[in-house]
C-alpha cells in the first residue's frame, strides 16, 4: 500500500478498538514470569553450552600475548575462542567498533575471548585463567580539551541569515556553555543471545534485539555468510532504549562458540560490559547564543556542540532541534563529532534531542528571565507554524501552544514561585520549572502478513515489542480493520521468518507498523471480496457483509487458511512537510536548603502526538521517558577516567538510574489531535517525546527554587551547595 497523500476520513476516525485503553495483551505472560527472554530459552534447542566473555583492560593498543591453555584445560570447558587467533571480523555498516577478531584494541572492555563450558560457573572461572599482555597506545579521552580547540570552527549544518549581525544588534542576548553527561541505556535485561551454528551452515539466533532484519544483515556481513541462511528470533526484549538496535558482542561470541564446539551456545553480557562494551549516549558540551528584541521575539540562534565518537561514528547531535523548534530569522547550528578512544557512542532514546533540549530549554528559561517574561509566554510568542529555515515548509499539525497553555492551567503555573529562592517549606526550597518538547515523527516502510484461520487472525511481522506495547496496538489495529474482537487476533513478532518491518527505534515503530498491519489487512479484505465475487464488503462483528451476502469470517472458504501480505510505503509528499511531535513539561522540585538534595515533587507532561493508539501503553511510554529524564537531570552520568579511557562507574550502583523513591506523582495529558499526513491511522510516536525537555524543566525548577543556575548535568548537589541562599545554620 502506498501512502502518497494525507489520509481522508477513514475507519480509524470512527474507531471501536483503536484509541481505547486496552490492557497489554502480553501482560499475563509478563506478570507470571512466563514471557521467554533470549537467555532463558531452554526449550528451543537441546545441548546448550554457556559462553562467558573476557574483555580488554586497556582502552587502546594491541594484544601482544594471549595464553588460554589453562582455561582450555579447566573442568567443563569445551572451547576457548580468542580474538588473537582470528582475523578481524567484517564490520557491519551499523557498527563502528569491530566486535571481534585481531589483536587491535579500539576501546576498553572490547571482547577479546569467549570461554565456552558446560556451565556458567565453569566458563566464568576459566575466563579468569586466560593470560593477556598488551602494548598500550596513547589515546584521546577528554571532551573538555577538544571543546577548547574547536570553538567557532568547522562547517555548520545550517547557516541562515546573518547570525553575527543579529547577535550584535539585539538588545537582549545570552551566551552560555552547557554540559550533558554520557549516559547508559542500562536496560534491565543485559544483551543476550543463544546461537546455534553447530553445523556451520544454517545459523539460528535467539536474541534480544530491536531491529530483526538489521540484525540479520549485520550477522551476514560479520560472518560473511548469506543472510538467507540466518534466522533471528527476538519475541521478548527486556528493554532497549536504542542499546539493542545493533548487533553486539553477545551474538557474535555465541556464534563463534557454537561454530567451534558444534553445539548451541548462549552468552549474556555481564552487567559491567553494558557500559564499556556496548554502546552509550555520548556526553556533550554545547555553546548556545540566543538574541531577542525587547519585545521578546527571538532574532537569532547560534548553537554549537561537540560529542565523542570512535572514528567513523556520528556521536550525539545535540543541535538538530534548534533548527526548527522556535521562530527566528537567523540561525546557525553546528555539531562536531570528536574522534576519541572511548567505547562506541550511538543512539539512545531521542538521540540528539534528549541532550539538545536539555540545553536549549534551559537557555530559553534564561532568556525569558533576561526579558522579564513568563517562560511559558516567551515560548508561545516564539512559536512557529513553518520550518523557520524553509518557510515554505509548514508543520502539518503543531499544537505546541496548546500544550503550553493546557499545561500551565493544569499545573497551576500562575501560582508558581516567582522569586528564585523565594519559597520555603521548612528545610526545603520549593521551585517550579517548565520546558518545551519536540521530536520528529519519522515513518519507515513496514511489512506484515495476516493469516485468517477459521475465524481467527494471525498477524506476523518482524516488528519487536521492547516494552512499548507493539503486541497490543498491532492487535488493536488488526481487530479494528477486520471488524474482529481482540481476543480473536494473535500477533506474532520478532522473527526473521516474518515480513520485514520498521523495527523499534527513532519513535517510528508504532506509526509505521500499525500502518503496515493495516495494509496487510486491507490486502486480506481484497482477497476475501474476490473469493465472494463482490466489489466491496464491510467487515464487522466477525463477519463480512456485502449486499445480500453476510458470512462469518470463520465460514469463508470453508475455513481454509487465507493468507495476505503487504507493506506500507510512505511517499515523498512528506518531504515537503514538517511532521513532528510536541509537548510541554511542568515540574515542582524541593531542594534541601542545607544539603542541596533535590527531590522532584510533581511532574506533568502535555503531549501532542497525533492519534493516541492506546492511552495506557502510550502513557506508560511517556512516564517512562519522564522517569529517564529525572535520572538524566539529577543522577545519571558515566564518569570518564581521562587517563585510562573508560567509564569508571560501570554497574548499577555506580551509575544511578532513578528508583521508586525518586519518582513522584506523574500526570500525562494527550491532546486530542490527529495528523492525517503521518499515516492512515493519523498517529505519531510518543516513546521519545516523553524524555525530551524533562531534564531542562527540572534544571529550571532547581534554579527557581534556589537561584542557582546549573549548566551541567547531572545536577548533583556539589554544583550548588556553596551557593544556596543564606540559611540559618
Amino acid at each position, binding site marked *: 500500500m502506498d501512502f502518497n497523500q494525507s489520509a481522508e476520513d477513514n475507519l480509524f476516525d470512527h474507531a471501536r478498538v483503536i484509541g481505547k485503553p486496552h490492557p497489554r495483551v502480553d501482560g499475563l505472560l509478563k506478570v507470571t514470569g512466563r514471557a521467554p527472554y533470549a537467555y532463558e530459552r531452554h526449550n528451543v534447542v537441546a545441548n546448550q553450552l554457556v559462553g562467558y566473555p573476557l574483555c580488554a583492560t586497556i582502552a587502546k593498543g594491541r594484544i601482544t600475548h594471549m595464553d588460554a591453555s589453562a582455561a582450555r584445560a579447566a573442568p567443563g570447558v569445551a572451547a576457548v575462542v580468542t580474538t588473537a587467533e582470528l582475523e578481524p571480523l567484517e564490520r557491519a555498516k551499523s557498527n563502528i567498533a569491530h566486535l571481534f577478531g585481531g589483536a587491535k584494541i579500539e576501546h576498553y572492555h572490547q571482547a577479546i575471548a569467549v570461554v565456552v563450558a558446560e*556451565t556458567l560457573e565453569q566458563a566464568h572461572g576459566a575466563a579468569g585463567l586466560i593470560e593477556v599482555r598488551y602494548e598500550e597506545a596513547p589515546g584521546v579521552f577528554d571532551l573538555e580539551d577538544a571543546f577548547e580547540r574547536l570553538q567557532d570552527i568547522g562547517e555548520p549544518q545550517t547557516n541562515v541569515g546573518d547570525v553575527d549581525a543579529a547577535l550584535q544588534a539585539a538588545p537582549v542576548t545570552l551566551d552560555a556553555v552547557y554540559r550533558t553527561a554520557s549516559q547508559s541505556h542500562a536496560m534491565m535485561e543485559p544483551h543476550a543471545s543463544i546461537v546455534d551454528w553447530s553445523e556451520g551452515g544454517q545459523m539460528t539466533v535467539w536474541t534480544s534485539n530491536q531491529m530483526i532484519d538489521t540484525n540479520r544483515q549485520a550477522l551476514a556481513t560479520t560472518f560473511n555468510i548469506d543472510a538467507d541462511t540466518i534466522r533471528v528470533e527476538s519475541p521478548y526484549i527486556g528493554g532497549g532504549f536504542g542499546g539493542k538496535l545493533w548487533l553486539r558482542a553477545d551474538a557474535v561470541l555465541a556464534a563463534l562458540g557454537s561454530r567451534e564446539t558444534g553445539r548451541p551456545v548462549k552468552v549474556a553480557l555481564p552487567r559491567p560490559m553494558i557500559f564499556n562494551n556496548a554502546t552509550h549516549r555520548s556526553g556533550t558540551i554545547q555553546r548556545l547564543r540566543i538574541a531577542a528584541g525587547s519585545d521578546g521575539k527571538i532574532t537569532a540562534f547560534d548553537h554549537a556542540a561537540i560529542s565523542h565518537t570512535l572514528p567513523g561514528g556520528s556521536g550525539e547531535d545535540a543541535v538538530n532541534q534548534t533548527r526548527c523548534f522556535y521562530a527566528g530569522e537567523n540561525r546557525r547550528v553546528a555539531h562536531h563529532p570528536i574522534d576519541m578512544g572511548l567505547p562506541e557512542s550511538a543512539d539512545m532514546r531521542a538521540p540528539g534531542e534528549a541532550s539538545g533540549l536539555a540545553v536549549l530549554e534551559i537557555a530559553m528559561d534564561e532568556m525569558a528571565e533576561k526579558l522579564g517574561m513568563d517562560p511559558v509566554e516567551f515560548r508561545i510568542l516564539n512559536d512557529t507554524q513553518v520550518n523557520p529555515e524553509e518557510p515554505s515548509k509548514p508543520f502539518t499539525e503543531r499544537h505546541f501552544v496548546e500544550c503550553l497553555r493546557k499545561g500551565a492551567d493544569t499545573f497551576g503555573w500562575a501560582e508558581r514561585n516567582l522569586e528564585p529562592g523565594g519559597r520555603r517549606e521548612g528545610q526545603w526550597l520549593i521551585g517550579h520549572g517548565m520546558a518545551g518538547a519536540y521530536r520528529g515523527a519519522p515513518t519507515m516502510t513496514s511489512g506484515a502478513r495476516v493469516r485468517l484461520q477459521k475465524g481467527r487472525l494471525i498477524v506476523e511481522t518482524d516488528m519487536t515489542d521492547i*516494552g*512499548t506495547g507493539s503486541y497490543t496496538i498491532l492487535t488493536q489495529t488488526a481487530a479494528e480493520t477486520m471488524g474482529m474482537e481482540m481476543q480473536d487476533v494473535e500477533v506474532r513478532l520478532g522473527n526473521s521468518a516474518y515480513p520485514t518491518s520498521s523495527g523499534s527505534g527513532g519513535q517510528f515503530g508504532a506509526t509505521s507498523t500499525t500502518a503496515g498491519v493495516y495494509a496487510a489487512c486491507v490486502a486480506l479484505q481484497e482477497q476475501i471480496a474476490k473469493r465472494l465475487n463482490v466489489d466491496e464488503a464491510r467487515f464487522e462483528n466477525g463477519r463480512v457483509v456485502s449486499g445480500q451476502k453476510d458470512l462469518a469470517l470463520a465460514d469463508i472458504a470453508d475455513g481454509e487458511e487465507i493468507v495476505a501480505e503487504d507493506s506500507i510505503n510512505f511517499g515523498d509528499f512528506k518531504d515537503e512537510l514538517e511532521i513532528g511531535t510536541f509537548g510541554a513539561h511542568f515540574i515542582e522540585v524541593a531542594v534541601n536548603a542545607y544539603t542541596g538534595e533535590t527531590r522532584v515533587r510533581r511532574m506533568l507532561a502535555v503531549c501532542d502526538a497525533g492519534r493516541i493508539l492506546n492511552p495506557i501503553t502510550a502513557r506508560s511510554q511517556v512516564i517512562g521517558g519522564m*522517569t529517564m529524564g529525572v535520572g538524566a537531570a539529577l543522577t545519571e552520568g558515566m564518569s570518564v577516567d581521562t587517563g585510562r579511557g573508560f567509564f569508571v562507574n560501570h554497574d548499577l550502583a555506580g551509575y544511578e538510574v532513578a528508583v521508586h523513591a525518586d519518582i513522584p506523582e506523574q500526570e500525562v495529558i494527550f491532546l486530542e489531535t490527529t495528523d492525517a499526513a503521518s499515516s492512515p491511522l493519523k498517529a505519531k510516536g510518543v516513546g521519545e517525546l516523553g524524555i525530551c525537555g524533562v531534564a531542562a524543566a527540572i534544571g529550571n525548577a532547581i534554579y527557581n527554587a534556589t537561584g542557582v543556575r546549573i549548566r551541567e548535568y547531572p545536577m548533583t548537589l556539589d554544583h550548588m551547595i556553596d551557593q544556596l541562599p543564606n540559611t540559618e545554620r
Partner: protein
Amino acid sequence: MNSPDSAGKRREITPHGVEHSNVTFTVNGKRHELELDNRTTLLDTLREHLQLTGSKKGCDHGQCGACTVFVNGTRINACLTLAVMHEGDEIATVEGLGDVEHLDPMQQAFIDHDGFQCGYCTPGQICSAKAVLEEVRAGLPSHITQDLNTPIELTDAEIRERMSGNLCRCGAYSNILKAITQVAEAHP
C-alpha cells in the same frame, strides 16, 4: 571482569576440597535434591538447573532486584546467595504466586495499572511488592519510618522507599505504586 594480576600472570587454580555439594530445598512447595557446583548462585540454580526463569538476572551484583525471591518467607536477591547455603529452606518464586488462570491479586494489580513495560523487572517487582506489605504489617521499620512505637502507616513514601531496591528502567514506578496501593486497600 577478569584481568591478569599485577605480575601479568595467573596460576591455574587448584580447588581446595570438594567442588560439588548436595543440597535439598523446596521451590514453590516442590522438593528438589540437587548436586551443584559450589559456586552456583541460588538465581542460576533456579534459572538454569530448575529452568524456573521467572526470576531474572539483571546485574548479578545485588544492585537491581530483578532476581527477588522469597526464602522462608523473606525476600532476598537470589543472585547474592549460593544455592548450597539453602539446605532445608523453603524458596518461593514468581512462578509459585499464581498462574494464568489464578493470578495473585498483586499480579492482577500490575496488569490493571500497567505496572510494567518490557516486563523484565516485573517478577522481582511483584515479589518485592508482596513482601513490602508483609513487612509493614509485621512492623519492620524502613529508613524513613518516623515512629518506631506505633504501627507503621503505609504511606506512598513508605512504599517507594521499600521498593527502591527494584529498578525499572522503563520507568513504571508511579504505576507500580498504584498497583501496590490497590492491593493494600483491598486486603488491609
